[in-house]
């Protein structure tokens, strides 16, 4: 965009100077001719100065458009930012080409060198021969023959030859981009050079073959169109991110601790306490991630606070902390980069000037290969057209806006009520479950034990339906309505999640009070132990107490981790079960009961379910949010998520292919892409907030986890700096982290952001401005092209035109409302032909004429 701007403005600059000179000369000449009218004329000339540059601009623009079609295509092709794969291919090919050209060059030079020796003795004949050869070689270039005798080469020719070779290479590269039939391309290729190495392309082929699930997605794409496929592409992208998060936590946290850390049972935090031992292996307990699962590398509490473990001296606590920070940082980076790329791609097309044409020319999805999808697509295109026409009509007249406004406010109010209600319900349920937990879960029914998760899942299932009903009140355009709907579901999920977190915070506080009591008790217990041993054994040898018997605090970090893991598990289960019941069972029933039912089940009430792209994407986003939130306290979460995504990929692919019908409203995928990404970013931000809060404000548990014994979790950085780095480094670091330095730095960053933002805004404005100017110039060009014929026609019709009135109908458009421009153009035109014109005020014309053109009345 920037590049385009600068070239355009450069053009404007140069043409302006040029025109100023012209106009100046003109003025001087005219000054002597029309002294009387000079004053008026001067004003006009000034105006002309202002916009003759546009004229020149438009000339060159039109010239490009019409006469240099081929060149333009080539230039465009070089400039284009299309698929990066393609570009890479081309870059490789170019490199290849260059290296080959170099090789040839060397060869030629070698031969030249040999020739140089012999040449000195030779006579003038040689020179003539050379000239002949030169002509020959030119001919050869034309006849596309590459075999040039090296004996006849001078550096100049060599240069030429190289250019010719390059040209050929370029031609080959551009062949595939030419809209020629294959025969022509083949012939051209055979005439020119053959490409020898295909290594890069083979590698490219290999790379495309390595993309997972490509065929599956292609198959879905061909059945359901690109919007459903976009969900699966999103899923795959998510899978990739989770794979990396999983690699980080697994490789740098879980495996080192499992291999090099102290083994299970060596210290209290790594042992199942005596009271739980009996039930530690029960499936019900393991399913809730209690028992042996709780005291394993899966959760925070298992990690010991040894500074360095194993023969590698692996800094475990530091690694744990950095991995936690790294996962979040990596996720931010990836999301923001993707968003920026999406914005870049769609940024070109955000203007609304081709609304109808796009609907017309680009709305068919050529991937559709299924009759039902095709029918739905027909219907959706038709409604799209009808809506567009209606919108166009309605944009001119908006009636009863008050009613719509009232209804929209009402709808939003209702939705807010729903949100508040669901938030309260969750808070209530969580508090109640805490009461149950205090009593002990054994005394309660299954429902009471799983109330929180069930209520959250149920709310997530039914509230969106309610929102859907409410949104019919609003009467929005479907795309806008979809975004509102998504926003509301988003708010609902987020509200639920945050209520859940607030309730968790309460629980953390309870646990911490408990911890204080336990801490006190432990000192008492140790003292009594110590006293006891003193009295019994005088040598005070360390008494061995089994680690399972040591009293310990309630590790709140593990509790948080467990809560999140349970939430993920129940969420996954609900998703899969709704998939199986809502989609598969329904499809089976509809399919087989249809024979013996009183109405048509397939077309009538239950019918087959649709694949809900937006809902599924939202579910995925929220799932990811929970992973980000809980991953610090439960390193196993990314692993679980990878598993879940892997299963959903296959399960949903299968479900879509076997029991879903295409959506009735087929939306384009690309339109809402960045919308989803923005949601992901918001979720990422909101899920890092509670994490940062807990890390910064709450001291870690005293007897579990890698940070036990420290006042705050981030103290581990400080510790490492002090003990593992040279003194000067920690000094530098402490200076660097001084608020006096950090604050100005942040301020600088804010200023930089502000500056960049405002420049980008101004670029955007300049772009819009230039676009407008371009449109105007096109309009003016049209008038200029039209003018001679119009004037001539008029003259032919009026034999003695001197002093007569004439009128010209000029095409009218949105860009060129002001007719004084056109008058000015006519004036300049006539001035050049040394004819004087005077303009009159407009006559009255009927509306039909005025709509399409504006009449100009003048006399010579």
């Amino acid at each position: 965009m920037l590049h385009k701007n600068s070239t355009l403005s450069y053009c404007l600059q140069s043409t302006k100077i040029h025109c100023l000179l012209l106009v100046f000369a003109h003025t001087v000449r005219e000054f002597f001719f029309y002294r009387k009218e000079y004053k008026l004329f001067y004003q006009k000339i000034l105006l002309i100065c202002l916009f003759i540059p546009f004229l020149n601009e438009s000339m060159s623009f039109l010239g490009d458009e019409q006469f240099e079609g081929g060149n333009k295509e080539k230039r465009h092709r070089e400039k284009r930012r299309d698929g990066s794969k393609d570009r890479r291919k081309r870059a490789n090919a170019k490199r290849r080409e260059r290296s080959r050209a170099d090789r040839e060059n060397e060869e030629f030079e070698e031969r030249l060198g040999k020739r140089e020796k012999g040449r000195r003795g030779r006579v003038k004949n040689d020179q003539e021969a050379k000239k002949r050869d030169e002509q020959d070689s030119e001919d050869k270039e034309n006849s596309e023959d590459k075999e040039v005798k090296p004996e006849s080469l001078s550096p100049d020719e060599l240069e030429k030859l190289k250019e010719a070779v390059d040209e050929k290479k370029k031609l080959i590269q551009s062949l595939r981009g030419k809209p020629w039939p294959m025969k022509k391309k083949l012939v051209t290729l055979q005439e020119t050079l053959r490409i020898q190495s295909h290594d890069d392309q083979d590698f490219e082929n290999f790379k495309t073959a390595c993309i997972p699930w490509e065929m599956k997605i292609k198959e879905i794409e061909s059945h359901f169109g690109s919007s459903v496929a976009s969900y699966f592409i999103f899923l795959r992208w998510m899978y990739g991110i989770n794979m990396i998060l999983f690699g980080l936590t697994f490789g740098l946290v879980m495996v080192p601790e499992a291999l090099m850390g102290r083994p299970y049972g060596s210290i209290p935090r790594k042992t199942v306490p005596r009271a739980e031992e009996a039930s530690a292996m029960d499936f019900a307990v393991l399913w809730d991630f209690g028992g042996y699962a709780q005291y394993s590398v899966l959760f925070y509490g298992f990690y010991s606070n040894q500074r360095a473990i194993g023969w590698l001296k692996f800094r475990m606590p530091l690694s744990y902390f950095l991995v936690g920070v790294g996962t979040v940082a990596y996720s931010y980076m990836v999301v923001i980069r993707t968003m920026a790329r999406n914005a870049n791609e769609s940024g070109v097309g955000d203007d609304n000037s081709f609304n109808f044409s796009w609907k017309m020319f680009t709305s068919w999805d050529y991937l559709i290969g299924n009759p039902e999808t095709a029918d739905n697509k027909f219907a959706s295109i038709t409604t799209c057209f009808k809506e567009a026409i209606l919108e166009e009509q309605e944009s001119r007249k908006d009636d009863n806006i008050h009613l719509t406004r009232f209804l929209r406010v009402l709808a939003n109010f209702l939705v807010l009520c729903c949100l508040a209600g669901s938030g309260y319900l969750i808070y209530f349920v969580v508090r109640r479950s805490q009461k149950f937990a205090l009593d002990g879960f054994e005394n309660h029914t299954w429902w009471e034990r799983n109330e929180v998760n069930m209520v959250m899942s149920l709310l997530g299932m039914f509230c969106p339906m309610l929102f859907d009903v409410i949104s019919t009140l609003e009467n929005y355009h479907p795309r806008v309505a979809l975004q509102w709907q998504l926003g509301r579901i988003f708010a609902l999920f987020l509200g639920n999640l945050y209520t859940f977190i607030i309730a968790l915070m309460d629980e953390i506080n309870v646990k911490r009070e408990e911890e204080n009591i336990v801490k006190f008790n432990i000192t008492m217990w140790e003292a009594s132990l110590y006293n006891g041993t003193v009295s019994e054994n005088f040598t005070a040898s360390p008494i061995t107490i089994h680690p399972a018997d040591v009293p310990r605090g309630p590790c709140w970090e593990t509790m948080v981790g467990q809560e999140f893991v349970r939430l993920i598990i129940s969420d996954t289960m609900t998703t899969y079960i709704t998939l199986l019941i809502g989609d598969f069972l329904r499809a089976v029933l509809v399919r087989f009961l249809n024979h013996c039912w009183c109405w048509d089940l397939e077309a009538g009430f239950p019918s087959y379910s649709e694949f809900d792209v937006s809902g599924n994407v939202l579910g995925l986003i929220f799932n990811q949010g929970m992973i980000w939130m809980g991953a610090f306290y439960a390193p196993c979460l990314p692993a679980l998520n990878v598993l879940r995504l892997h299963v959903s990929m296959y399960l949903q692919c299968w479900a879509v292919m076997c029991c879903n019908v295409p959506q009735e409203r087929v939306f384009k995928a690309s339109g809402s892409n960045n919308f989803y990404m923005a949601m992901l970013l918001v979720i990422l931000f909101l899920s890092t907030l509670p994490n940062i809060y807990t890390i910064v404000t709450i001291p870690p548990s005293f007897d579990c986890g890698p940070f036990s014994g420290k006042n705050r979790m981030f103290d581990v950085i400080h510790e490492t700096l002090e003990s593992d780095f040279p003194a000067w480094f920690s000094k530098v670091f402490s200076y660097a982290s001084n608020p006096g330095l950090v604050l100005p730095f942040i301020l600088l960053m804010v200023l930089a952001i502000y500056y960049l933002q405002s420049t980008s805004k101004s670029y955007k404005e300049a772009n819009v401005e230039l676009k407008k100017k371009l449109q105007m110039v096109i309009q003016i060009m049209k008038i200029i092209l039209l003018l001679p014929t119009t004037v001539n026609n008029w003259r032919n019709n009026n034999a003695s035109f001197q002093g007569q009135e004439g009128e010209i109908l000029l095409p009218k458009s949105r860009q060129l409302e002001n007719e004084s421009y056109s008058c000015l153009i006519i004036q300049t035109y006539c001035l050049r032909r040394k004819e004087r014109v005077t303009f009159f005020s407009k006559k009255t014309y009927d509306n039909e004429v005025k709509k399409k053109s504006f009449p100009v009345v003048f006399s010579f």
Partner: protein
Amino acid sequence: MGATASQLDTGKLSEYEELTFLTKQEILLAYDRFDKLVPKEEKNRIDYRVPMEDILELPELKFNPFKERICKVFSTSDKKDGSLDFDDFLDFLSAFSDSATLEIKSHYAFHIFDFDDDGTLDRQDLKKLINCLTGKADKTSLTPDEMRMLIDNILEESDIDQDGTVNLSEFQHVISRSPDFVSSFQIVL
């Protein structure tokens, strides 16, 4: 692929690879698919022309409202019957592959939409195009009034030189700004 692939020797294959936006596998797959359309007695001829009716039965094209136009545009047959030989078939797949450039795609899209092959999209072409897009069913077709308004709006937007038709450069100008043309103008075997 075995026996069929042997017909497509490596030299030819790499030539095709160089000239199209397709990968080696895609070309082989295309050859396989094309070979199935060729009747038994004609097996050894790579330049056999598959008649349009057979091409239209391909599941990738079967439900495409522009299938006849696609065949007509890509066919190099002298008889203008829309029949495709293997070269044409590859041309067609290359233009619709996901790595083809916007220029090539918009060029072919223009010719597909240009129903009367006169080099411009006039009102009749646009009308046919709308009819193709809205399907054959009665409930989805537009009234003549709506049709007229739609065409008016389209011409107002994209007919820059205001000659009442949309020519290739105007068409490409409009298309190049569209966010999702390249992604939707795709056919994958």
